[in-house]
């Protein structure tokens, strides 16, 4: 059964259609990549799904419930969590406290939230950093903290916005392992925006491509990598030569 259904969603900012008639659905247990060139409307789509932007037209169904009109915090409480591309921590909260904020969604008790947070920190291999302020950490660890915080709310669906951006190859490897284990061990359905193609193509079950606000492709990674429209809009010939054969 579909966990998330996005039906003909359009988001217009004045005359600009950042998302134009986008339709797709997501099954429980899938790991889907969302790719496209800069300005294609990927983050806008995340903002629409998570309720930060009211959409112009269309419908969004999550767990058989129409969430189109709901506010962001109401959607989050139904089990849809997300991370942000640029997370600016002013430096007030430690890593553990950050994750606890997520855990407080389901409990009022501090000790319970703390126990849960520690379980998640262990799972994300962050327990040695738990006393640090988020602002003191290197980028890679910050990204893992944002994931851990989102996981604190025990989501059914997790939207990851460029968690690998700005990381070096070994860090990308690490975060990929984390995403996989979140997906498999915790059983969370994941949809991720990513520019690091190795990562997306390797771990996604399915890839959705956006360009100028429109969906131009939707299919398994190997198919999508060969799609001429996708190559023209985003991947480029060189990428296809280098990588596509490996995938096929």
């Amino acid at each position: 059964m579909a966990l998330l259904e996005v039906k003909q969603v359009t988001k217009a900012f004045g005359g600009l259609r950042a998302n134009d008639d986008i339709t797709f659905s997501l099954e429980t247990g899938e790991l889907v990549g969302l790719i496209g060139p800069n300005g294609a409307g990927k983050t806008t789509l995340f903002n629409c799904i998570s309720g930060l932007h009211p959409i112009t037209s269309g419908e969004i169904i999550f767990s058989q419930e129409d969430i189109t009109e709901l506010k962001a915090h109401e959607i989050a409480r139904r089990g849809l969590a997300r991370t942000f591309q640029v997370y600016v921590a002013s430096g007030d909260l430690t890593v553990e406290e950050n994750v606890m904020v997520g855990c407080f969604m389901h409990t009022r008790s501090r000790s319970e939230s703390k126990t849960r947070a520690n379980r998640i920190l262990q799972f994300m291999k962050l327990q040695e950093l738990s006393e640090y302020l988020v602002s003191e950490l290197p980028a890679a660890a910050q990204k893992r903290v944002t994931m851990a915080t989102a996981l604190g709310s025990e989501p059914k669906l997790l939207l990851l916005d460029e968690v690998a951006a700005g990381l070096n190859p070994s860090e990308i490897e690490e975060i990929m392992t984390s995403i996989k284990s979140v997906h498999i061990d915790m059983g969370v359905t994941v949809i991720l925006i990513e520019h690091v193609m190795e990562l997306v193509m390797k771990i996604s079950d399915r890839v959705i491509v956006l360009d100028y606000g429109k969906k131009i492709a939707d299919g398994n990674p190997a198919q999508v990598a060969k799609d001429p429209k996708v190559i023209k809009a985003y991947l480029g010939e060189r990428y296809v030569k280098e990588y596509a054969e490996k995938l096929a």
Partner: protein
Amino acid sequence: METIRNALDFSDFPRIDLIGAGLVLIFLLIFPLLPLSAFAMATMIQFLMFSIYGMGWNTIGGYGGQVDLGKAQYVGIGAYTTSVMLIRWDIPFWVSMPIGVCFAVGWSFIIGYPLFRLKGHYFAIATIATSLVLKDLFEAWNFVGAARGLEISPIKYRPPDFLRLIFKEDIYYYYVLLGLFIIGLFYINWFRKSRLGFQLRCIKDNENVAESLGINVRWAKVKTYAIATAFVSVVGSFHACYIKNIEPEDTMSLSISILIALMAMLGGAGSLWGPIIGAGILIPLKSYLKEWLGAKAGLVGIDLIIYAIIIMLVSAYEPRGIWGIVEKVRRRKRR
């Protein structure tokens, strides 16, 4: 049970903090027994009052990062409720104080809900405006004595009157206030570790992140604003019984609002000890400036100039105030 345990649990502070806090507490407990002038006693009562104001402000302004410059209106609501009830219907302090809190909190919901559509500076300016409007209304409202204010005449009662909080000697007021101070401190210690406390700190960091973690940002702010209001209103009621002569100008003026915010901002917004440190520095300074420089040297208004300088210095160099500097040094040492 867990709530009480959390309120009494200070174990996340380093030992040196706790020793310092313990020494200050002992000093506060024995202070009235020391041979000191009435001026020192009055200053100390002011210190405790502004510490509690600051603690209240610190919930929304410090932990929540919503700079509120209109807290004086709630001082006024508390003070007027207690005065009017005592003078007109002889209702004692311990009854009128909670009623005052109800009025203040009710009013805070009415103006808080629309105000929290605004952010940052706009919010701060709007709080100033509401407070000034309320002050003007009280200045024109005959039922509460208009601009002349109200006077509780102590002759009618037989001090020490614990129910009505009418005393001759300041020492009684001091200990009542110290009790409120300690309760307030425990409450804030619970608050900062509670779910609402965590949610607010997240809101201060990034409101979109907070929303996406299931936090109803506006409601969390309104709730906390009401908590801050309750703190201020309680001390406002106390103020009425202590000063016995209240008028809109000295309970609801802008300078009171600014002073309340300044306690926490200077001492350290968003920390437990901040408002107390701030009040410990500013209140003696204020008394001194008023008494000596203002009256004797004829430099009226010098205190306002100094507050302005402090605000500028704090916001330019260390937004987290004195306690922010302490924590920075500690973090540097640990690494």
